């Protein structure tokens, strides 16, 4: 697109909509493990551009540039790849409506069909989000979509290719790995994880508005997308309805087997011995299992007359560990966190940097949150607690926001991990850890200043 065309578009506000924000996040933390940063600064410049050259055709882009810095690292200051500047292309897509009830979309977009707010078991393609603040994650997946939307019915089909390599927010390998290793892998800096398989997903859904209830039936097929399943077909169901000031919702995904990582017996205590004897530290023994498994969330929100909102969600993670499995995984993780993170698998496109990365390892979780806006007009208080119901460890997030002007929001938040019941956690020597205290961070305090434009 030439600068002249851009200039012409910019002079027509009905054709161009630009918004965004400049955000500064300063975090201080109690560090408990090697590499954890005591002080970090993250500055984000975000632009959201919407071009509408025709009422039936739009182009939308949501992109962010991040500058990051980290100091006072546990174990000594050093260069850390995760704190380098980066660009995140959250969304970039063209959206066409050739007829009223036909929609075609191509590009990168975050599509969430499930009704869960903190947890979405039916979401199989997007980067993970922080359940204590889902607004931190804006990033979607590269996909093509055909949709037939009607007033109370919609039928959608999506094909998505997994980002296998990306630089500066742009993919250099989608669906298939290139036939040659990346420069970093060739140098031996990172393992060469290539394979010759197609990493893709197909998702379809039927949305119905029935008896004032949002009903979404979905069917997904994935092959080595955001989990280790090959050729996996999974049905899903999502419901949402309001009763006066109360909203209730549920969302579930069914599958056979599980991609759960199990640590080999004995290897959690002496992984070096296992490596020397050629025994794999961990495996996924249930990938091809035929037992029925489910991941599900049920929850609700209550809207108070004074504008306050109370929200709760219970998440059942069918891929989670039993106490014995968690003891082994937790023991290995506490000693070799990078090893376990590699075994669990990390997305090549994690999306927007998250304040709290949640990887559910157990089966039962409960999220409670309460928000009260307009305290003394410009203040908002918010508190959420994410608890593992099996050891009662939790992440507590109290937060207060102040908006001195409509374009500026200042937020002070704390992320406080609580250990729960010692007897129900992971025991390593004389110490016990809950699921939310395995992290190399103790309490963190975050100050955010966000200016909108």
């Amino acid at each position, binding site marked *: 697109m030439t600068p002249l065309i851009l200039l012409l578009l910019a002079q027509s506000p009905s054709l161009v*909509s630009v*918004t965004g*924000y400049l955000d500064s996040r300063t975090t201080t933390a109690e560090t408990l493990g090697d590499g954890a940063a005591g002080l970090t600064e993250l500055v984000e410049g975000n632009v*959201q551009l*919407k071009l509408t050259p025709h009422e039936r055709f*739009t182009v939308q882009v949501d992109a962010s540039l991040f500058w990051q810095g980290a100091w006072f690292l546990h174990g000594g200051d050093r260069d850390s790849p995760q704190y380098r500047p980066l660009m995140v292309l959250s*969304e970039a897509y063209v*959206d066409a*409506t050739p007829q*009223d*009830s036909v*929609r075609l979309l191509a590009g990168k*977009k*975050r*599509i*969430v069909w499930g*009704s869960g*707010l903190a947890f979405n078991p039916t979401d199989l393609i997007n980067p993970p989000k922080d359940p204590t603040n*889902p*607004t931190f994650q*804006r990033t*979607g997946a590269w996909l093509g979509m055909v*949709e037939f*939307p*009607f*007033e*109370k019915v*919609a039928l*959608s089909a999506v094909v998505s290719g997994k980002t296998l390599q990306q630089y500066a927010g742009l993919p250099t390998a989608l669906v298939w790995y290139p036939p040659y290793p990346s420069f970093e892998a060739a140098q031996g800096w990172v393992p060469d994880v290539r394979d010759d398989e197609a990493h893709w997903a197909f998702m379809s859904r039927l*949305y119905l*508005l029935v008896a*004032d209830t*949002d009903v979404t039936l979905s069917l997904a097929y994935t092959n080595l997308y955001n989990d280790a399943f090959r050729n996996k077909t999974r049905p899903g169901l999502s419901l*949402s*309805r*309001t009763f*006066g*000031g*109360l*909203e209730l*919702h549920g969302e579930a995904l069914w599958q056979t087997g599980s991609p759960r990582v199990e640590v080999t017996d004995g290897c959690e205590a002496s992984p070096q011995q296992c490596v020397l004897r050629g025994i794999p530290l961990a495996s996924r023994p249930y990938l091809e299992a035929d037992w029925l498994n489910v991941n599900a969330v049920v929850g609700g*929100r209550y*809207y108070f*007359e004074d*504008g306050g909102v109370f929200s709760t969600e219970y998440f059942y993670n069918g891929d989670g560990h039993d106490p014995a499995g968690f003891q082994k995984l937790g023991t290995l993780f506490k000693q070799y966190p990078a090893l376990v993170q590699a075994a669990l698998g990390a997305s090549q496109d994690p999306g927007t940097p998250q304040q709290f990365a949640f990887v559910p390892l157990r089966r039962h979780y409960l999220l409670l949150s309460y928000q009260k*806006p*307009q305290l*003394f*007009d410009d203040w908002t208080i918010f508190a959420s607690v994410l608890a593992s119901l099996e050891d009662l460890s939790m992440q507590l997030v109290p937060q207060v926001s102040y*908006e001195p002007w*409509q*374009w500026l*929001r200042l937020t002070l938040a704390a992320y406080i991990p609580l250990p729960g019941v010692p007897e129900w956690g992971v025991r390593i020597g004389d110490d016990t850890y809950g699921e939310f205290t395995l992290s190399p961070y103790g309490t963190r305090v975050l100050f955010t200043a966000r200016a*909108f*434009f």
Partner: protein
Amino acid sequence: MTALPFALVALALSAEPPTALDALKAYDALMAPPHFKATTRMTAHRDDGSTREYAMTVLKGEGDKSRVWFQEPAAVRGQEMLRNGENLWVYMPNLKRALRLASRDSFQGGDFNNADIMRADYAVDYEATLEEDAAAPDTWLLKLKAKSTDASYDAIKLWIQKAPLGMPVKGEYYTASGKLLRSAKFSEVKDFGHGAKRPSRITMRNEIATARYSELVFDTLDVTAPAPDSKFALADLGR
């Protein structure tokens, strides 16, 4: 769509008082034509005397369907709301998705609630009785009682002009216990063209926090604008 105004004129000229339902339908017809597109501004006046301003476009479709696009301020730009019957959703750009909302929730933290903006079809939600008001002989007093708990208020008193019938003057909005929550003043009647003549300014006072009030101003109102059903589909939000 021209039959209704003639019927209203006929009712207004009639010596017989209108029925409560006719009067309520006359109010609905003035305040919520079958379909329209409007550009509006809302100013929320707060306790400390400062203000918060919002700009939005409202599209109303046939039946109980409406949609709002927020243009200002920047912090809510891209946010949308959709109403279809009893169902209300808000599209949040930072979540990239829509969530269900309750009708009674405050509209952008101002003194209107969601249903005040997104729904004005009172004949569907309320049972009405009609009375004379000795203090205001040019008006009828419509007393509305909610048919269900899903309605935005449990009871409403509306003062509407006898001629033209249905033109609102003021309103009071109550809880089930009879507590006055809000009061409204309808002013600056404006001819928007194509027979659309109605108050262009609604001032809603918060009777709990009495220093607070919000004003909703209709800058334009186009009753000829198309409002296809596709604009009121959940899948269309965020486009």
